[in-house]
């Protein structure tokens, strides 16, 4: 079967519109079912280049907790999520850490940095 016909659940806001994207090719797509303009943008991007913010934790030494929460500071391609997890799982940081501190710059060439999402002091300090 040729052409594109997909139903996408919009994740832009809590409404969660079911958006249908269809057409003979990626140049000629029709979008329906969205309640706002942002939904159309999301649905088209989801077809052309689906991206997500990756959020996880890294190991931290001498911190008040054993894990430090981190995020990518911009969205990365969906297929890069697990490869990026492998990189993130290998890093180990030393307390103290400040919120926003870059822990991995330009992870796997995605243009996104992995940054700390909280400050964490040294254990007992």
């Amino acid at each position, binding site marked *: 079967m040729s052409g594109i016909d997909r139903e996408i659940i*919009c994740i832009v806001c809590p409404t969660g519109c079911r958006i249908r994207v269809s057409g003979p090719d990626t140049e000629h797509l029709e979008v329906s079912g969205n309640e706002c303009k942002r939904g159309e943008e999301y649905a088209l991007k989801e077809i052309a280049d689906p991206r997500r913010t990756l959020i996880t934790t890294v190991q931290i030494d001498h911190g008040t907790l054993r894990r430090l929460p981190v*995020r990518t500071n911009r969205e990365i391609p969906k297929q890069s999520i697990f490869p990026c997890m492998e990189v993130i799982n290998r890093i180990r940081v030393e307390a103290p850490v400040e919120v926003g501190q870059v822990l991995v710059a330009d992870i796997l060439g995605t243009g996104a940095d992995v940054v700390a999402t909280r400050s964490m002091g040294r254990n007992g300090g």
Partner: protein
Amino acid sequence: MDSYDIVVIGGGPAGMAAAVAAREEGVQKILLIERDRELGGILQQCIHNGFGLHHFKEDLTGPEFSERYIRRMEELEIPCKLDTTVLEITAGREILYINAREGATKVSAGAIVLAMGCRERSRGAVNIPGSRPAGVFTAGTAQRLINMEGYMVGRRIMMLGTGDIGLIMARRLTLEGAKVIAVLARKPYPGGLMRNVAQCLYDYDIPLMLRHTIVEIQGRDRVTGVLVADTDENSRPIPGSERLYECDTVILSVGLIPENELSLSAGVQLDPHTGGPVVDESRQTSVAGIFACGNVVHVHDLVDFVVEESEIAGKGAAGFVQGRAERAEVDGTPIHLLPGEGLKYVVPQRMRGINGEASLDLFLRVNRVYGRSAIEVRHDGDTVKRLKRLRMNPGEMERMRLQSSALEKLNGADLIVEAVEVDG
């Protein structure tokens, strides 16, 4: 006995936002009491994003949102007692707390703000039969273990319940290398938001099994499997439909309950529909000078709405200690708001028109999925206010604005709030 203008109980987003709002109203002697080792509450373990879109106009993670409030608490020099548990409060606004430095200590307050949040329903609350092996966790406990304490909870996971925390944990466990066999919902629709179903389950090919439940947990020392059954139209398991799924871990995401033991010790009246205190529009409870906000009042979807409500409570408590709310005691004929057909609850439950605000917002939740519909506020058969909606579902809190002018002549009245289907 030390005395304070306002004592806030709980250092999560609700407590911090209430304390900040009270300070900004000029209240000097504020004390915040928190049982954990740091401020931030449950947000510190909610490492995912989606917070702050309303309040900060930014897409923040839980810890990022929390840290902004912690900084604000520091800037305003609001004192906190950490690692401190409140044991009892009284209607006379005395607070008994305990910690390792001071022992058991009693303080008094001009006003108290209750901001203890909520707790999770557990296996006992949903009565799952079977043995009692290790490996059964609530979603929030698993979240704290993985995201903060650094312990993985299991490898092959069956999840019961489709609350947002459960959906988010299904994704989190998958990212950390576990296999989530399926997420089960007793009802024909998921409890959480569709966007979380999409970005947490569909993105990772995690099966969502609607109309299924766990009828038995098996295993002696550790979970070895669960019996899963289909459910009927009343969400009850259908005998004979059981199948065995092998797994080492069961995660429950089966609802949250406001945590109100302390409220009860002060004689605060609770609403059976929310599980939290009955409050008026300034978030004052049935006991004068005791206010409440956040998930202790009703379980919110978004922290943005928690802090909005907590600012109301902080200002309300400030008004009380500064003497502006004295009329509350005098004008004793409140309007009562009652949930009618289709509504799970409505907050606030009482209005006293004491703040002189031009309008006030009702927060409410429907008890089933609605398509084209309306929320109506009725008095003696007349519709006082009507709000049309394209769709409503129990997983999303609704908000409705009432003009104070429309309420002036209704003192002492009972207003019924209902959800109705609309054709076309």
